[in-house]
């Protein structure tokens, strides 16, 4: 994905060529939908939120200052929208409390460990059940391939704040997951 393609398309749209916006949509639909999906774990809702993000981007194209890369601006806009949407109508999975995360049905494999798939699912559910500020920091951090600076730009927060939230979010996760998922082993021992 080229930043110059984005810039060229934005200039064409601002000059009145609406069709040029399709290039932007096609380039960024995957990332925006996937970002939305990580927030709500609902494909339909992720697409709805991504569509609204594109519409807002279209309305606000003139406000994009070219000192930042277009994708940075777009992700910040989308993140802001997703966060407020999910605060307005929480995702069903998000409304689950950390204490309500059940152990997977097949909690132990033959050697006493969890099946990888179940364990991964439990971790992702636990992330969604975190308090919003930690959840958002973790989602953005991993979405941006563990780049704190990008996550901070998307969230519109200083890097230090994001690092602190990541640290605290991981602490909460570690505590809950170790406590809940390691219980079978401890009982066995």
């Amino acid at each position, binding site marked *: 994905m080229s930043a110059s393609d984005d810039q060229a398309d934005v200039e064409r749209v601002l000059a009145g060529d609406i069709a040029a*916006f399709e290039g932007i949509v096609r380039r960024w*639909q995957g990332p925006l939908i*996937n970002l939305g999906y990580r927030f709500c774990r609902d494909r339909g809702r992720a697409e709805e939120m991504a569509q609204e993000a*594109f519409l807002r981007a*279209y309305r606000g194209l003139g406000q994009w200052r070219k000192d930042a890369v277009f994708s940075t601006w777009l992700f910040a806009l989308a993140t802001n929208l997703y966060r407020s949407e999910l605060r307005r109508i929480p995702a069903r999975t998000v409304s689950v409390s950390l204490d309500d995360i059940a152990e997977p049905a097949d909690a132990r494999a033959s050697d006493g460990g969890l099946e990888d798939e179940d364990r991964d699912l439990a971790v992702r559910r636990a*992330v969604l059940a975190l308090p919003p500020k930690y959840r958002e920091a973790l989602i953005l951090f991993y979405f941006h*391939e563990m780049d704190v600076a990008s996550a901070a730009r998307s969230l519109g927060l200083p890097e230090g704040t994001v690092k602190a939230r990541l640290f605290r979010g991981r602490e909460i996760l570690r505590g809950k997951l170790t406590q809940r998922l390691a219980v079978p082993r401890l009982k066995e021992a």
Partner: protein
Amino acid sequence: MRRLIRYDEDEMNRILSSEDEILPSSGFAVSVMDAVRREAAAPPPIPFPWKRALPGLVVAGLAVTLVLVAGIVAIAQLGRASTTARFSTSWSLSLSSFLPSATPPILHGGMGSAAIWVAMALLLAFVSVKLSMRMASGRG
């Protein structure tokens, strides 16, 4: 199979980094572009005609101010008169001629209670205006 003893950072990073990517629906881009075209075709919102409304707003503002000042002065006069139990000033006389025989106790309670009632009325008006503006802007 890996045993789960504790969630160290590497393990968490591995799990949360390995998210499955979902593909957009086939019609997603088309649907977004339809919405964008509808948006572009919609007429721009009509701006509020400030130039036309300004004289009326100024007159209305002045009228409200005058009424408030007149009301406060009248209440002040009433308060003063209540201490002598008679309306002696021309202001009070003219006001008393408009008041029904059974006037509410507020008009006989003196300056303090009158001021409280005025303040409450102003506060109520302010809250009503803020509330209606909030509802009109769709944030309510």
